[in-house]
């Protein structure tokens, strides 16, 4: 028996198989068994994803290079950026933590933003590259490993801690970090997996 599997969707949490309902944007497809969200169609997903991921990519450099904050203490001023945090950790021999910070706050977000941008760019121009799939698959894999939001909260908490000890100045890096965080959050809101995957499948045929 030949079944067209394109019209089927399986719930990722409970594996219930359902026919894909015809829904418009603003609605959600809900699993009849466990009531989790099956998928949500997004408006203008391609253009929005492209714009946001490009903005995020441009913000990546200032967010890592510009100083996050500095302190005045005993006549000295010392400021630091995200990259300096990592170099300091490697200099002190904490390679594991340096690696964690590098991967979770820079590499994973960068790969996600780049994947989203490159994918939407190629789909718009009808450029067909076999490794696009590898990129998009990695996007799904890295979903739970991006931690800019946690890092940002960490910066806020440490600001709170340092205010008691010394005079603290906020750097331009924090503003870029906030905007990068917004881009990365909006990216996961705007991207429409199902739509992108079906487009990708069609362009490969």
């Amino acid at each position, binding site marked *: 028996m030949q*079944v067209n*599997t394109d019209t*089927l*969707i*399986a719930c*990722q*949490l*409970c*594996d*219930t*198989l359902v026919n894909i309902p015809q829904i418009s944007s603003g609605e959600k497809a809900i699993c*009849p*068994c*466990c009531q*989790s969200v099956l998928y949500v169609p997004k408006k203008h997903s391609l253009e929005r994803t492209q714009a946001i991921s490009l903005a995020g990519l441009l913000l990546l450099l200032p967010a890592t290079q510009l100083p*996050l*904050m*500095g*302190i005045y*203490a*005993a006549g*000295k001023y*010392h400021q*630091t950026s995200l990259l300096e*945090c990592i170099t*300091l*950790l490697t200099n*002190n021999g*904490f390679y*594991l*933590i340096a690696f*964690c*910070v590098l991967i*979770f*706050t820079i590499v994973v977000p960068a790969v996600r933003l780049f994947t989203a941008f490159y994918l939407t760019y190629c789909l718009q121009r009808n450029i067909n590259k076999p490794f696009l799939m590898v990129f*998009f*698959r990695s996007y*799904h*894999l890295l979903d*739970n*490993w991006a*931690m800019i939001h*946690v*890092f940002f*909260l*960490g*910066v806020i*908490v*440490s600001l*709170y*801690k*340092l205010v*008691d*000890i*010394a005079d603290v100045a906020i750097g331009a890096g924090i503003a870029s970090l906030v905007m990068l965080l917004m881009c990365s959050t909006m990216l996961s809101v705007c991207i429409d*997996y*199902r739509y992108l*995957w079906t487009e*990708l*499948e069609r362009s490969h045929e």
Partner: protein
Amino acid sequence: MNKTALSLGFGSCPRCQKVNKMHNERQQCSRCHYWFHARKPNSIQKTMAWTITALVLFVPANLYPMMVLNTLGKTESSTILQGISAFVQVGHYPIAIIIFIASFIIPLGKIIGLFILIYNVKHKTNINLKRQSHLFHIVEKIGPWSMLDVFVVVVMASVVNLGFLSNIEVAIGASYFALMVIATLMAANSFDPRLLWDNKPLTKEQVYEQ
């Protein structure tokens, strides 16, 4: 009426979520060419292993100091709990609560939650499957937040670096803590929530159909 993809001979790709007809136990997704199984193989054993690892690492992560503070030749080291109690003494309750939740309640809650889920799959307890599914969803999503304290220490150490006058150094506890967080993330990753529903008893209509 609700049938699982597995019982009908289908499997959904864990990456691109396309439903594929399963010809072999392990096969390649027709859309994204990812090799996958209908269920994650050895999911329970792997989850169990990672969860126990996380539980073991939780001990040194809390016993060893997270950071060392040097001021004018004096050294002072503090663990996570000491750091939190310092906040409470100064009166910064909101920050103390945030750190306590992120670095204590979330990892412990994740470990306990995963043990509950493993137990339920192994003993086929079919109580409140929806709630269990929901529990897994929460466990999966809150994971990264427990990294908070490590990031705080990293930023502090990097800013307060004024040579002999005063500087803060990262200590060994932070490494254990980071490893513990990675172990809990891996544990949640290797758990397959669909196993919870596989033991679900048939409804009356399904029994009649068969």
